[in-house]
Each structure stands twice: as C-alpha cells, then as structure tokens.
C-alpha cells in the first residue's frame, strides 16, 4: 500500500459541517459525556497501547538498529555509523539516487497529467464520472500494486499483447522495456495520475466563481486570471501534491518487485534484498539504515502535503 491519505476520506462521505452544525456539536457532546461510565477511558488507552506496540516500537527499532553493528574484530555488538555511511555509497547509494530520480520524474509527470485530467473531468461536471475516477484511483493506488504489475506484463511485457501489435506495426518497444526504470515509471503513472486527480480536484473546485467574475469585470484576461488569481490559490496544493506523489512513488514496492523480480536498483527493493540476508558480512544492519534513509526522505514530504492540504481546506469552507 502506498501513501494515499486521500482515499479513506473519499469514501468517508462526510458533508463538511456547516457553521451552525459546528456550533451545535459541543453542546450535544457536553451532556452525554457525564453519562459515560468511568471505565470508558480504557478504550482509548487500549488504542494507544496497541499503536505503540505495533507501530511506534517497530519504527523505533529502526532508529536504534540502524546505528548498531558487530565490531569487526571482537564480534560484539557496538554502536556504529557504518550502516548509515554504507547507504550513501556504492550500490546502495546508486539505488537511492535511482529511487529519487524515478520518484521525481514520475511525480512531476503525474502532477502535470493529473492536473490536466482533473481539470477535464471537473469541467464536464459529471458526478458519475467523478465517482468512477475516485474509486478507480483508490483501487489502483491502494489495493492494486501487484495486479497492476501483471496488467502491464500482459500489455507491454516482452510477450505482451501491445508489444506484439506495436512490433507488427513497425514500432517495436525496446527489449525488456517494462523491466527498466522508464518502464516502471510508465506503470507508476498508472496509479499516480489518478491519485493526483483525487487530491487536486477539491482545490480546483474551491476556485470560487466570484473570483472569475471579479477578474472578468475588472478587465482581466483568461491568462491573467490563471496567473494572478487561480495560480496563487492552487500553488500550495500543487506543491503538496507533488510531495505526495513523490512519496507515493518513492515508497512503492509491490509493483517494482513483481515486475523486475526484485532486481531493479531502487531503495525499496534494496531494502527487501538487504533484510533477506543478501548482504556482506558486517552489513547485516544496513537494511535498517536504508529504511531510515527512506523515513528521512518521506516523512517531511508527507507532512508538507498534510500541511498544504489543511491550508487548502480553509479556502474550500
């Protein structure tokens, strides 16, 4: 599963609370609160304990283990920076660079294509089309990693249907195209573009008609409207979406693993290979360091997305 905060919400079907409802809420809550039994706090306590044991502890383990290693001479466990240093060197460094490059290219392409597509879909004003797109995006981005790979193997793999047709038409795909970085990028766009449509549509719809009218009445051209009015309003969402798509692409594992049998030199696959024991002696903990590197890249960017999403929400209400 990839980083897609939007999806759960898209099915949440919560109409935004009106100011009146928001004002009424605290009053409603105040009364039954006294009636809750005293042991009610056990539920949140259990929840926090659960999240701590099954999420915070494993993530904490990464932070610790990334700096642990065996002393080369005595074999005793010691604190060391060697794992983290190894991540930036040689094969691991190259895979990190590949990952960043792949994510950057797919994120930019996904943002641009998704924005254009979102505009085209919003402009038709069809609710059925929107529903179809949002559920398809949810499936592709969250539940489709592996099936997606098979889909593309059947289409543009070496024995794929489209590969055959294209070769017949005199436009042969490069051999093993699908199993290379550009091929994987094509597959990633298949879930990144719908994801972009999903996250940018609310921002597009938040552009108030009054702004367009005001711009027109003041003699603004279409270009001026987009440059001075719509552009600045959309800018934070675009930056946030770019960050989100980057993270989504950077974190994706299943698709690339299935397509390339885990041989593509990108960080998620390097982690899988490292934790399955394919490491040099003395680098047993390099998998943790690689995971730490991913956290360092992904976490700030996802938080940036969350922040911009909240800012955008203000425009919309």
């Amino acid at each position, binding site marked *: 599963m990839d980083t897609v905060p939007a999806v759960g919400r898209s099915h949440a079907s919560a109409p935004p609370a009106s100011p009146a409802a928001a004002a009424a809420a605290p009053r409603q809550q105040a009364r039954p609160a006294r009636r809750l039994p005293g042991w009610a706090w056990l539920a*949140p306590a259990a929840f926090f304990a659960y999240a701590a044991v099954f999420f915070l502890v494993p993530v904490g383990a990464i932070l610790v283990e990334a700096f642990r290693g065996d002393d080369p001479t005595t074999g005793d466990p010691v604190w060391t920076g060697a794992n983290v240093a190894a991540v930036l060197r040689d094969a691991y460094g190259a895979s990190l660079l590949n990952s960043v490059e792949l994510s950057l290219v797919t994120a930019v392409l996904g943002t641009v294509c998704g924005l254009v597509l979102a505009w085209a879909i919003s*402009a038709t004003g069809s609710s059925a089309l929107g529903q179809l797109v949002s559920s398809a995006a949810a499936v592709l981005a*969250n539940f489709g990693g592996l099936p997606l790979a098979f889909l593309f193997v059947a289409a543009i793999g070496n024995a794929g249907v489209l590969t055959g047709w294209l070769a017949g038409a005199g436009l042969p795909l490069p051999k093993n195209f699908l199993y290379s970085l550009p091929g994987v990028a094509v597959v990633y766009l298949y879930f990144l573009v719908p994801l972009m449509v999903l996250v940018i549509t609310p921002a597009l719809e938040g552009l108030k008609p009054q702004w367009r009218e005001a711009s027109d009445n003041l003699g603004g051209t279409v270009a001026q409207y987009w440059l001075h009015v719509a552009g600045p309003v959309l800018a934070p969402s675009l930056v946030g979406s770019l960050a989100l798509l980057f993270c989504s692409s950077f974190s994706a594992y299943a698709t690339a*693993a299935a397509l390339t049998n885990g041989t593509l030199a990108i960080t998620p696959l390097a982690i899988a290979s490292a934790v399955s024991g394919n490491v040099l002696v003395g680098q047993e903990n390099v998998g943790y360091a690689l995971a730490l590197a991913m956290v360092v890249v992904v976490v700030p960017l996802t938080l940036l997305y969350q922040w911009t999403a*909240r800012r955008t929400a203000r425009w919309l209400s």
Partner: protein
Amino acid sequence: MTTTPPAVPGAVPGGAPGAATGSGSAAPVLRASGTGARAARAGVLALAVVYFAGPLLAALWFTVSSRSAPFSLAAYGRVWGAPGLADALGLSLVIAGLTVLLTLVLLVPTALVVHLRLPRLRAAVDVLCLLPLVVPVIVLVVGVRGVLGWGPDQLAGTPFEELLSGVQSGWLPWVLPLEYVVLALPFTYRALDAGLRTSAAATLVEASLSLGASWPVTIWRVVLPTLRTALLNAAFLSFALVLGEFTMASILQYQTFSVWILQFDNTDGQLSVAISLLSLLLTWGLLLLIAVVSRGRTRAPRRDRKA
C-alpha cells in the same frame, strides 16, 4: 493534521464541497467556454481513456487468446483448480476477517469515547492514525522484523521470546493481522470518525440513556445501527487492503494470496493475469458499491428537507 480536510469526500464533482457554493455554481469556473477549450477537454479525456483502458483491455486479451487457441476462456476456468490457491486465499481470508474484527473491536469504542467524552484526545488519535500512511510499509516491515528478531537475541529465556515466536508460527501468523490493523488505521479510523461526525450519535446516545437503556443496549441497538455505513466502509476498506497486501506478507515470507500469485506467475502467466484482473475489478466494483450505498444514505435526508 488535527482537522480532516473536509474537501476530499466531496472531491468528486457533484459531490460538491461547500454547501454554500453547491455543485452547480462550482463547475462554471472550470467550464471553459469556447470550442477550443471543449476540444482540448475531449482530447484530454480521450487520451486518458486510452492510457487507462489500454492495459486493462490488453490484459483481458492476453488472458483469452494464445497461440494454441485464438479465443478461449480456459484461463478463467483454471482459476479454481490452481494448486495452492485455496490455501493461500483461505489464509488471506482468515487474516482479513481477523483484521476487520480486531479493527472494529479496537476502534469503535475508541472513536466513540473520543467523540462523546474526550474530544481533547482527538488530535492525538488523529496523528497516530495518520502516521501509518506517512511511514512506507517496506520501512515498517523492516522494523517488525527487527522486533521479532529480538526474541531469540535480547529476550531469550523470557516470556516475551515465546510470545514473539508464537505470533510468527503455527498455521496462522498472528503478526500479519496485528500489523494489518495498523496499516488500515488511516482508512478505517477516518471512515468511523466521519460516520460519527455526520450521525447525531451524541443525541441518540443521550436519548437512549434517558429512556433507561443500559450502555451495552445503547451500543448494540443505537450506536452500531447508526454507524452501519461507516462500519461497512471501515470493514470493507481493511478487507480489501489485506487481500491485496503484498509487501509485508512477502518480506515476512507468508504465503498469502498476493504472494502466491507472484510465485505462480512463473508457471502460468495467463492465469495470474486473469486472477489479477478479477481481483482488481472485484475490488473496484465493491468500492463503487460502497460509494453508492453511502451516498444514497447521506443524500436522503437532504431531499426530505427540500420537500
């Protein structure tokens, strides 16, 4: 992070965000006039259809046609006899069921208490429910492996060692449902939270208690029916997530449904493409169904108000 951006549920055109603007008035801004814009729009949509339908149709063609038989549904007929499928699918279904059960048992009381009594905890719960989205699954599973590895190392001879080996062994690897609850948290909690926000749960609970019902009766006969759509959403989202989950299962080396498909791909490519298509379309169909059902339920009162 503390507030759910209200936008996305209405992200879908027509599901319109602001009640103030409404779907009718939001669209015209985007609805560029002139034939040029309309042609551009049509072109964009056509390109999108080709890009998104192309691989689907190609895959469909791949499954029904081969050198020996130009058209045959044999690959779909082979689905049920595939060796190992029943075991893998069975394991995935059991894990999915457990995940849903654990999720509801853990989250429904939490969401309810936070909603009714401890709104100050909401920010903390929101953040915790968001974090699993922030941290990639491949990273989390490395951490889980690390913790499991402490069993024989640091914790040898303590009850924790047995506990840690217990969750990994036997016919049911408990570690998977336990972790899948975490992976599904962002989706399930949001679904429940949205359900609680839109229902008048607080008022209904008050009414039920005032009429002399006990807490268990109130929960069973008032709260749960009120939250039916939200529960359905949460349950389905986590169910679909578990059936499709590949990263954690494959790194921890359990033969779940998705891990089985990949291994089986070497034997019968046509069959794995067929199963992939089926699982994608099934997930999509169910998700659409949920969307339609929940929309029908939230729209109904609005129509009443107008009438």
